[in-house]
């Protein structure tokens, strides 16, 4: 990896010089490995076969203006496996995203949604968000804007990433294989600038990728492909971004997101409407972040609990019954109680679920909840968690990153390569799909107006459309994270609760916020 960094890193050139900086690139080209044959030329090469990269490909294949472009996608993982992914209806992956209506409508527009197994996707119509310190609460739903005669509008749709990726792959396969190359199980071993081909085009400002099979020791020469537009959909450590010498700024939150797939107790029909699904999020300022329970079909739910690495490690090591008790406690008990429970000694040997002895965490929860005031309406709390799907408890570090620019000549960044944000609003994948929709539109405009797809004049449209939007949402999530990490009942807690109450009681402001989140 280190050698890749070195070979890909270009000398720093200030942005304005870089834009006109063809000479710098030409000089750089002399260092690149000489290519015997001229590389195969593609219009769009996308590095990374996650939802963003595949989404771009599917969008380009779906539009008549861009369906004839010669496109390629490079992915280190086996996409064939992703294509044939399947789970039974009782099990759900722990990698789940909350797709906003605009993401879903984009996926519908490009014909992907038809391939999503919607029986595994769960739309929800209401969101309960409250402050664990002060009890201040806000309810997000569209009831104010929908007439009583129509169904409640969807806030977002929970979808497993694997379900989405499989749908994207089917949609791409459906578009045929003309002008399409998918390099699965393939690593980008280097990216460098091309060279002048005698009696041919001058590719000295074109990125040339060397591709090698991921798990192969064969010494066959790497395949060389040239990209009119190289799209980095290659995640937080994007090699494409490094090649383009685009810097990122940001920080690690020193928090981990603990995820798990949970099953819930049957809903009490008195308090819970059968037709309205609700997502619950409680901010736990003293514990480092919010806990969220997002509905999945068949009375399952997906957990995302942002907390300190120490708490995350503690939670992950708990036996299932204790873990379940902690999740139920986190939605019901006070910060003091929770802090105590997170410091309880863990049982030496994991108690089996069938063991009749009461789990110490369950025990704590049972008597502490009796002494904690609970909300008046039971529907303001999620149903009790009764089970955790085996092998789904995992955690990942939370980070904030924002690239200094999304574009450079013949380079565009999308998704996590461009921005990584705090997951508390569930916006990460939605921003990525927003990028992809905007970039596909930019490419379509360029293709119908004789523009060079990789030219900076083309790409600045994309950057102009997305940079500020993503910075705004990423920044808002960051502010919320910081605001809800101030423990106690000081002025900050008072102010944020006051703000939440105001937003909740003024329909106009709330409607504005909800439309903004879309």
């Amino acid at each position, binding site marked *: 990896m280190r050698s890749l960094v070195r070979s890909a890193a270009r000398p720093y050139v200030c942005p304005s010089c870089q834009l*006109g900086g063809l000479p710098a690139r030409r000089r750089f080209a002399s260092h690149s490995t000489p290519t015997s044959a001229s590389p195969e030329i593609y219009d769009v090469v996308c590095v990374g076969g996650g939802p963003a990269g595949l989404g771009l490909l599917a969008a380009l294949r779906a539009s008549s203006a861009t369906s004839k472009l010669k496109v390629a996608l490079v992915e280190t993982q086996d996409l064939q496996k992703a294509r044939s992914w399947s789970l039974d209806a009782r099990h759900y992956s722990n990698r789940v995203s909350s797709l906003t209506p605009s993401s879903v409508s984009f996926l519908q527009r490009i014909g992907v949604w038809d391939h999503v197994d919607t029986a595994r996707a769960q739309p929800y119509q209401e969101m309960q968000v409250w402050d664990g310190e002060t009890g201040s609460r806000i309810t997000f739903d569209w009831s104010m804007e929908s007439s009583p005669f129509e169904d409640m509008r969807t806030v977002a749709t929970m979808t497993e990433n694997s379900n989405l990726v499989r749908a994207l792959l089917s949609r791409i396969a459906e578009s045929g294989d003309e002008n399409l190359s998918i390099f699965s199980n393939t690593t980008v071993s280097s990216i460098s600038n091309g060279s002048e081909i005698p009696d*041919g085009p001058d590719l000295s400002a074109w990125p040339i990728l060397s591709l090698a099979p991921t798990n192969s020791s064969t010494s066959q020469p790497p395949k060389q492909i040239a990209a009119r537009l190289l799209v980095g959909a290659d995640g937080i450590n994007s090699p494409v971004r490094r090649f383009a010498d685009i810097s990122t700024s940001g920080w690690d939150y020193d928090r981990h997101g603990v995820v798990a797939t949970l099953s819930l107790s049957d809903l009490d029909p008195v308090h819970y409407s059968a037709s309205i699904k609700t997502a619950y999020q409680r901010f736990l300022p003293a514990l480092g972040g919010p806990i969220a329970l997002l509905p999945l079909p068949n009375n399952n739910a997906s957990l995302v609990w942002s907390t300190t690495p120490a708490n995350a490690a503690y939670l992950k090591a708990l036996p299932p019954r204790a873990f379940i008790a902690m999740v139920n406690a986190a939605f019901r008990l006070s910060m003091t109680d929770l802090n105590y429970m997170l410091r309880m000694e863990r049982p030496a040997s994991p108690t089996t679920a069938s063991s009749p002895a009461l789990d110490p965490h369950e025990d704590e929860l049972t008597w502490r909840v009796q002494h904690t005031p609970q909300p008046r309406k039971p529907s303001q709390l999620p149903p009790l968690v009764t089970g955790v799907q085996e092998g789904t408890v995992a955690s990942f570090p939370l980070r904030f990153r924002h690239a200094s620019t999304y574009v450079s000549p013949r380079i565009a960044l999308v998704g996590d390569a461009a921005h990584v944000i705090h997951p508390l609003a569930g916006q990460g994948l939605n921003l990525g799909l927003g990028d992809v929709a905007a970039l596909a539109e930019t490419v379509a405009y360029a293709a*119908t*107006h*004789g*523009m060079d797809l990789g030219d900076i004049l083309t790409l*600045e449209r994309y950057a102009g459309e997305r940079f500020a939007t993503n910075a705004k949402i990423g920044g808002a999530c960051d502010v919320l994270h910081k605001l809800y990490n101030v423990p106690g009942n000081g002025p900050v807690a008072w102010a944020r609760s006051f703000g939440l109450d105001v937003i909740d009681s003024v329909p106009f402001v709330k409607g504005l916020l909800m439309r903004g989140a879309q």
Partner: protein
Amino acid sequence: MATRRALRTLNHLTTRRAHSTTSVSANELSHFSALASSWWDPQGPSRVLHLMNPLRHDFIASCLSEALPPPSASASSSASTSSTIPAPNPNTLRYLDIGCGGGIFAESLARSISASPTTTTATPTRAASITAIDPSTTLIKIARDHARLDPMVDAHLRAGRFEYKNCTLEDLIASLSSSSSQQASPSPSSSSSSSSSSSLPSSSPSISTPIVTAPAAPAPQKYDIVTLFEVIEHIESTPSAGISPQSFLTDCLRLVRPGGWLIGSTIARTFPSWLVNQVIAEAPWPIGVVPRGTHEWQKFVNPDELEGWVQEGLMRGADGVAKAGAAVLDGMRWKCVGVVYVPGLGWKLVPGSESWGNYFWAVRKGI
């Protein structure tokens, strides 16, 4: 009327004789050559021009949707012989870009030429080929060098579908006339007008021959679409020598096939345009967006003037041909739409804003 017509002919003759320096101003040439190095810099002095380019494609598409030039005899015959498939390639239009500069428009048009000759889907420009000319050697070199940076455009250049020529309009007409007279016998399409051209020597027609390229000269090879973007306002007007935008337009129109379009853009000579283009656009940084000295307000052209010149040009171009005088205006179409630059948003087509400054115009030659 008779004297006017005689005068017109005379003007035209002098124009022809003056040849390679006619419509091109030395000042303009040096101004634009000085900008050459930054011509393709997206943040450079030509940025505003780059941003306007996609709208040129939109405007061309709107002209084509109104009236498509009829398929030429050669295009249809080649389509029928080259393939047995009944659906022919719909992209048959031959383009000529006059005053291409560094190739901003020409290259983008070349990019719209379909790479596969057997395609049956129509592209927005329906282009089959483009010839781009400019009198500045520096700019043509810039254009050629830049074209090499794109393998697709480079392939079009090598295949001859795209061509840069370092010459003036007058040179081009002369070379086309001579080549068409050479090809007079094998090419049936030019037979109607080649009768008087047989005496024309094929070599160096400009220097050695007396005035033979009079209005009755052989019709040169013609184009479906001739484009004239941001050119007419840079044409040197020297009435004493009979050189004017009018004579230049007449020459342009000569190269348009019946049913084809002459499409251009320019700037109106009005108070708002003076304010916008001279005072604001050429103001020092950071207000200005156009290099100082790019425009001379006096040379700007109003839409009605242009329409008059075009009509006049069509009539003059028809001189010596069977259909003459006002009759040639019968099938003509005139189209004009304003375009406004909004900082931060870019160029927008705004119908009715023609007199504020920049506008696109197009004239279709009657069939």
